[in-house]
């Protein structure tokens, strides 16, 4: 009796193992798709809560769009096709990384332009300061400076 029960027990353990083995393959495939869905969702903006991407957003539309991304990837479509699909419907705005084109040159180039401008101003200022330091004081300036220093000395004493 005990032996029979043990046999049934091992049989069920083996069956459970087999059942898991059978499911393992699709789960792995899903995980691969899921990883791609996740990666793409981080690149796409949620239109409802605009400062979140699809991956972060809990809006209903974000869930729908994520499902759309998943469906398309499962159908074997490429990342680029998914991106094109979204841009066609929601415009460049849907992209978290805006494309470089004539209307976005200021956006992409602006910071570099500001940086270059800042460097230019710094250079000019430093140059001017160096030139000022190079010129010796005139006689009048020396008198004024000496007066100031003496005055300070008296106040200190």
């Amino acid at each position, binding site marked *: 009796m005990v032996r029979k029960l043990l046999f049934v027990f091992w049989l069920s353990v083996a069956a459970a193992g087999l059942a898991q083995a059978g499911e393992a393959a699709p789960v792995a495939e899903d995980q691969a798709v899921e990883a791609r869905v996740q990666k793409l969702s981080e690149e796409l903006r949620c*239109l*409802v809560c605009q400062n979140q991407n699809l991956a972060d957003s809990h809006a209903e539309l974000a869930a*729908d769009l994520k499902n759309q991304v998943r469906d398309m990837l499962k159908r074997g479509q490429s990342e680029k096709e998914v991106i094109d699909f979204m841009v066609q*419907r929601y415009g460049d*705005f849907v992209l978290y990384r805006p494309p470089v084109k004539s209307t976005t040159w200021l956006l992409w180039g602006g910071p570099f332009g500001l940086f270059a401008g800042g460097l230019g101003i710094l250079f000019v200022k430093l140059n001017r300061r160096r030139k000022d330091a190079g010129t010796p004081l005139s006689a009048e300036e020396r008198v004024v400076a000496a007066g100031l220093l003496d005055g300070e000395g008296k106040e200190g004493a």
Partner: protein
Amino acid sequence: MRRFLLPLVVFAVLVGFLAVGLRLNPREVPSPFIGKPAPAFRVSQLGAADQTISPDDMRGKVWLLNVWASWCVSCRQEHPVLLDLARHHVVPIVGLDYKDERDAGQAWLAERGDPYAVSAWDRDGKVGIDYGVYGVPETFVIDKAGVIRMKHIGPVTDEVIKEKIVPLVKELNGA
């Protein structure tokens, strides 16, 4: 005085940018659909499950596609405006009941009046995605050739009807 000039100019430019920025509505994402053919669909009608509706059925007419839902709060605000527009027979309005239950959608129209020539039933929101819908209500003006000419996001108001939609519909009908 000259040393105050530069900060003043910078300040004025900043104020200019902020003044323009404050007037922009971030909810209004420029639609990539303007001037493009309305995406095709064929779904069942809300009122008659055995009949379908497609943009092709409206070919040759200037028409409005209004995306609504019984769960949408702003649609309640917009509804009287649409009813008024429908009463004047300016332009046929096709409804798109977006992500809604059929019963709930029908009940909503029965209770509040039905401004739509016909309503399409978009149960899972797939048509909505094809039209780039991201907030209900949205309204599209579509011309005789089936090209989208205008998109309004958010509830349609009397001003929008008077100043934008009606003149555009007249122009499109005249052409």
